[in-house]
C-alpha cells in the first residue's frame, strides 16, 4: 500500500488483484447489471489510484477502504438514476454465471464467510432486512425509505439501528467480528 500511495503501478496492480472480486461483487449487488458494476468498479479503482494518499490505516483495513469507495461510487451512480431503474437485486442466474472460481484457500474462505454473513442478515425480521437493503445496497436515504414504505421516519431509523445491533450480536455470537479475510 505504501508503494501504491507513492504512485507505483505494480503495487497498485497487486491491490487490484487482491480486492477486485470483492469490489466488483459489491458493485454488482448494488447496481444489478454487469455494465454498471464495471463502470463503478473502474471509477472506484481509478479514484483509489489518484487518491491513494488518503488511505488511513488507523481507520480500517485496505479492504474496508476499497469497499467503502466502491459503495460511495455505486451510491453516486444510483442517485444519478443511471442504474436504479435497471437494478434487480438478486439476479441469481447471472450471478451464478459470473461466480468467481475458488483458486485459493483464502478465496474459498471468503466465499464461506460471505455465506455465513448472508445467513446473519437473512435471520433479521423482514422489516429490518428491508430497510438495510434499501439503505445500504439501494442507496436510498431514510426519508426516501419512509416515503416508500409509508412508515414514520423515526420508525425507519429505529429499524436500521435495531438491525445493526442484531447483526453485531450475531457477529459476536458467531465469532465473526474479527474476520478480516
Amino acid at each position, binding site marked *: 500500500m505504501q508503494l501504491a500511495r507513492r504512485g*507505483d503501478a505494480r503495487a497498485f496492480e497487486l491491490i487490484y488483484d487482491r480486492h477486485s472480486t470483492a469490489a466488483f461483487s459489491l458493485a*454488482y449487488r448494488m447496481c444489478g447489471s454487469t455494465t454498471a458494476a*464495471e463502470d463503478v468498479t473502474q471509477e472506484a479503482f481509478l479514484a483509489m489510484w489518484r487518491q491513494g494518499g488518503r488511505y488511513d490505516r488507523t481507520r480500517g483495513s485496505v479492504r474496508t477502504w476499497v469497499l467503502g469507495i466502491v459503495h460511495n461510487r455505486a451510491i453516486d451512480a444510483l442517485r444519478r438514476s443511471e442504474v436504479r431503474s435497471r437494478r434487480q437485486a438478486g439476479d441469481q442466474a447471472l450471478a451464478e454465471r459470473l461466480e468467481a472460481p475458488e483458486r485459493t484457500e483464502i478465496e474459498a474462505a471468503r466465499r464461506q464467510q460471505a455465506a455465513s454473513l448472508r445467513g446473519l442478515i437473512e435471520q433479521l425480521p423482514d422489516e429490518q432486512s428491508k430497510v438495510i437493503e434499501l439503505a445500504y445496497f439501494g442507496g436510498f436515504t431514510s426519508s426516501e425509505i419512509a416515503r416508500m414504505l409509508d412508515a414514520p421516519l423515526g420508525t425507519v431509523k429505529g429499524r436500521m*439501528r435495531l438491525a445493526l445491533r442484531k447483526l453485531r450480536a450475531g457477529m459476536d455470537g458467531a465469532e465473526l467480528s474479527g474476520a478480516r479475510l
Partner: protein
Amino acid sequence: MNQPQRPHSEYADALGAYVLGALDPGERGEIERHVQECKRCGQELVELQGAAEILPRSVPQLRPPAGLKDRIMGSVEAEAASRQPRVRDAGAVRAAERPRLGRLFGRPLTAAAMAAAVAVAVAGIVVLGGRRVSPPGARVLSARITDPSVAARARASVRVVGNHATLQVRALPHPPPRRVYQVWLQRPGGSPVAAGSTFIVRTGTVEVRRPLRRGQRVLVTVEPAPGSSRPTRPPLIVARPA
C-alpha cells in the same frame, strides 16, 4: 444561532441510518457533533460501524469481467508514466519487445530503473530532455493539427534525421481520461501502422520508434489507453513528407 437540541433518543435512533449512509448531509453533521460530546452514542456508533462492515462482505463473490483489469491498469500505467521524471535514453527498449508491466516487474528493479522502465516500456512515452543539437541533414516536416480549437493554441512538427523521426508537440490538450495520444505511420494508399509510441505529455519530444520510409505520413490519434492496434478516431495531427 445554535439549533435547538433534540431529545437524546432521536440522536441515538439515527445512529443506524448514519452508519448506513442514509442521512441527509445536514443531519449527518448533527450526528457527528453529537457523538463528539456523547460518550454513550460514540461507543454505540463504533459498534454499529463494525456491524455495517459485514454488509459489503456478505455479497456473493463474482468474477470481474475480462478486460476490466486491462482498462484500469492501462490508465494507471499511463498516469504513472506521466508522473516519472523525463527519460533521456530513449533507445533502451524496443517497442516490439515491450513486456507487460507484470512480467517486467517479475524481478527486482531499483527505484530508478523502475521509473525509467515504467516511462519507456509501459506507456511508450519517450521524452528527450536537454538541449537539442540539430545534426547535419536534419529536416523538419510540417505538421497540421486538424482540430481548429486545438490548432489555435498547440503546435506540432516532425524532425527527421535519416529514417529516424521525432515528433515535437507543444501545448496539446490533456488527453481525455483513460486515453493516450498514439503515433502512426502511413504510406500513400496504405493503412496506418502503429509506430510504437504513445504519449500523454502536452509539451515535449516523442520518438517515433519505427523507421520513417520515403513518402510516409506521421499521424497522431487519441486512443483508449494503453493504445490501439489500429486507429479508432481520425488523426489529430498529420505530418506530410516534404
